[in-house]
């Protein structure tokens, strides 16, 4: 049951209703069971792999009473990494095994738990062992974030679980706003942009160059709204049950550097995961400039490979995407600091956006050939673009897409460093309610509710 289905909302209402009335002591177990029901609704075989990951993670830590902690947890982490790599390489398909939805995300969470346990970092030292075990399991199976993150460390949840999960009005209010925002981003913005993106990228040799250019810009916002929309849903749903998950996006297209884009603004929890479990163990930035560049490129190459199998084609395009981003970050780090004036910052934001945009072509295109075809055809057509623009047969979908993107950017610029939902909460009640009703009306009128899936659920 996807977030856009009636079954999911009925499931959610039922789950909230039961959660609100059962004793505090039962709530965690109930939510774990509800999570298993939700994940199982996508196919009962998914539960087998989830069970395998949970067993390896919890089992390896539990067994350390009888073995060295580091050995057991390292073995567990390597086992999960190997299975993850096997799925990514498509090895399971030869045995008729298809990768379960979201397996990357909970595998990453499990690997993080194992490595942190080996370093005795997985939990606050004062947390009782039952809380530790509960938080570990919960961090792996919690349904709102199971398919596409945020990748949650068990120590982030342990403190909240120890205090007990509350059903509070504030959680419902803030969570509701996040859910509304998430649905708007996904069903209204991302899925309407897809109507222009998908046909153009399907025929890169034949689509008009201007159409390819528009589709590339649209894709940048499609993937942002698709992924961040899912995150908003995950955060909002969790807040309803009294849980605060870490944020995953921070207005990425308003970042003034590619480095900051990846470190602090886009898929933040994955960035932190790669930092903590790949970049830093390789030496980080402490082993000299050349070694730092190698470490950076390794992280971005692995990230690129991790994205392969997304459904846009396999392998090489994502690898180029990753390596390009790594190269941009490495070059940025070698450049002197720019003055922090408004104009320079605005220019840097524009440049950063377009550098990322360039890499999105490799991410979205079916293969490397298609990516180069798109770039070649667009760059050759750019000089004549002003003349073509005046006569181009724009459709309603183009205008709707452009309007949605402008609306999104305006909202992000106006709200500054504060999250959009916090700004809305701070408004006087009439304005707040008007915005909520307007959002719901948009969702009803423009939302594409039919059979929708999230891009990152294919991991």
């Amino acid at each position: 049951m996807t977030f856009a289905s009636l079954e999911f909302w009925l499931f959610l209402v039922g789950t909230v209703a039961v959660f609100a009335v059962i004793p505090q002591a039962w709530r965690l177990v109930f939510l774990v069971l509800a999570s298993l029901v939700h994940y199982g609704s996508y196919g009962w075989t998914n539960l087998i792999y989830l069970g395998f990951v949970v067993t390896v993670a919890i089992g390896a830590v539990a067994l350390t009473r009888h073995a060295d902690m580091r050995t057991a947890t390292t073995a567990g982490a390597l086992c999960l990494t190997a299975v993850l790599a096997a799925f990514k390489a498509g090895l399971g398909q030869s045995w008729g095994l298809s990768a379960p939805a979201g397996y990357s995300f909970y595998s990453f969470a499990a690997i993080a738990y194992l490595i942190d346990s080996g370093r005795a970092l997985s939990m606050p030292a004062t947390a009782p062992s039952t809380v530790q075990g509960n938080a570990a399991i919960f961090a792996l199976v919690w349904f709102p974030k199971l398919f596409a993150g945020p990748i949650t460390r068990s120590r982030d949840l342990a403190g909240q679980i120890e205090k007990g999960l509350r059903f509070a009005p504030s959680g419902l209010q803030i969570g509701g706003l996040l859910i509304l925002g998430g649905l708007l981003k996904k069903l209204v913005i991302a899925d309407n942009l897809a109507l222009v993106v998908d046909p153009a990228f399907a025929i890169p040799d034949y689509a008009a160059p201007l159409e390819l250019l528009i589709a590339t810009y649209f894709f940048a916002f499609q993937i942002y709204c698709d992924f961040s929309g899912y995150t908003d849903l995950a955060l909002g749903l969790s807040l309803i049950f009294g849980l605060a998950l870490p944020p995953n996006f921070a207005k990425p297209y308003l970042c003034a550097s590619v480095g900051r884009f990846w470190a602090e603004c886009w898929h933040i929890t994955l960035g932190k995961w790669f930092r903590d479990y790949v970049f830093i163990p390789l030496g980080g930035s402490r082993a000299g400039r050349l070694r730092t560049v190698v470490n950076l490129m390794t992280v971005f190459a692995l990230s690129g490979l991790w994205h392969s199998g997304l459904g846009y084609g396999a392998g090489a395009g994502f690898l180029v995407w990753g390596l390009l981003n790594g190269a941009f970050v490495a070059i940025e780090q070698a450049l002197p600091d720019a003055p922090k004036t408004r104009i320079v910052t605005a220019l840097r934001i524009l440049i950063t956006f377009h550098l990322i945009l360039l890499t999105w072509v490799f991410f979205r295109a079916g293969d490397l050939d298609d990516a180069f075809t798109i770039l070649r055809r667009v760059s050759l057509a750019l000089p004549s673009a002003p003349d073509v623009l005046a006569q181009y047969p724009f459709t309603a979908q183009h205008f709707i897409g452009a309007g949605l993107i402008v609306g999104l950017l305006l909202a992000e610029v106006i709200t500054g460093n504060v999250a959009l939902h916090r700004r809305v909460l701070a408004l006087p009640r009439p304005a707040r309610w008007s915005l909520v009703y307007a959002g719901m009306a948009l969702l009803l009128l423009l939302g594409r509710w039919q059979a929708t899936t999230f891009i990152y659920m294919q991991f």
Partner: protein
Amino acid sequence: MGDHWQPRTTSAFLAIGLVVYLALLTGAETLVRRHGDANPFFRIWSLDTPGTGWLILGASHAMPLDFADTRQRIEDAHGTTIVNLAATGAGPYVLRLIGGRFFQDHHAANVLIVVDGFGYADRRWNEDRIGDPDMLARIPYDRRTMAALTDALPRLPFKTWLDYGTGFSKLNNPDRLSPDIWTAEARFDESRRRPSAAAEAERIDYLYPQGGVPEQRYLDDLAALVAMCRQAKARVVIVRPPLPPGFREKLPMEAEFARRIDQIATRQGVQLFDFSNLLPEPSYYFDTDHLNRSGVQAWLNGGLSAILSGNGP
């Protein structure tokens, strides 16, 4: 809201939200009534006479009988009136619902049921078809239609009933400002030059996603539809429409389907005419399997006209 529940504020929020929803729904319903055309339930709702000479039920193969001025010309030529309630992808379960709704407050002297094998092989063309957004979005609110859908539960999916009741598909219809016309009608005067095997294969895969074995419950729906029409004092004729030979030969389980339809016709005591071999030339079709204007005329000349006049071919 803070950490205190505020029931009055929450109630006010929900009440205003409901008013906003109803306002949007009123606008959506107005657009349905303004732009409605092809949807069979809309046609029933907008009929200005209670009776008709012929009622035509079927899927898309029956729709060319209503394209452009064809229906008017047939009416003039045969001195009768025709109500065509064919709909794209309408299997016998859908036709039974449509027929049932029609006969609640209308009558027909004759009913022509155009049967296609694909409609008997998959729930996609039956229980799930009514719930398709393109269908639901164009059904106007009508007490009797609501009653018909309620009676159809639980076989009719609850989501479909809920969607109609809440008007969700009407609100969410991206084509709300466009007239409800099947785009194929614009190709009525075209004709195919050469059959495309690839296009035919793709079309058949689309029509028969699970293969072609006719399911008993859908055959029972046809039998029930025939019985319903006869109970409404209508004479019933079942026809199989003309199809291009290359397309027809690729259809799965056609012989089995023909045999089962023949059994139903015999058991129900109604006439069955098989025109599937009548028009082999590709020039009579505007795509893989739909008759164009000259194809419809050839069908009329080849026996359909005699049926509509009250005789056999």
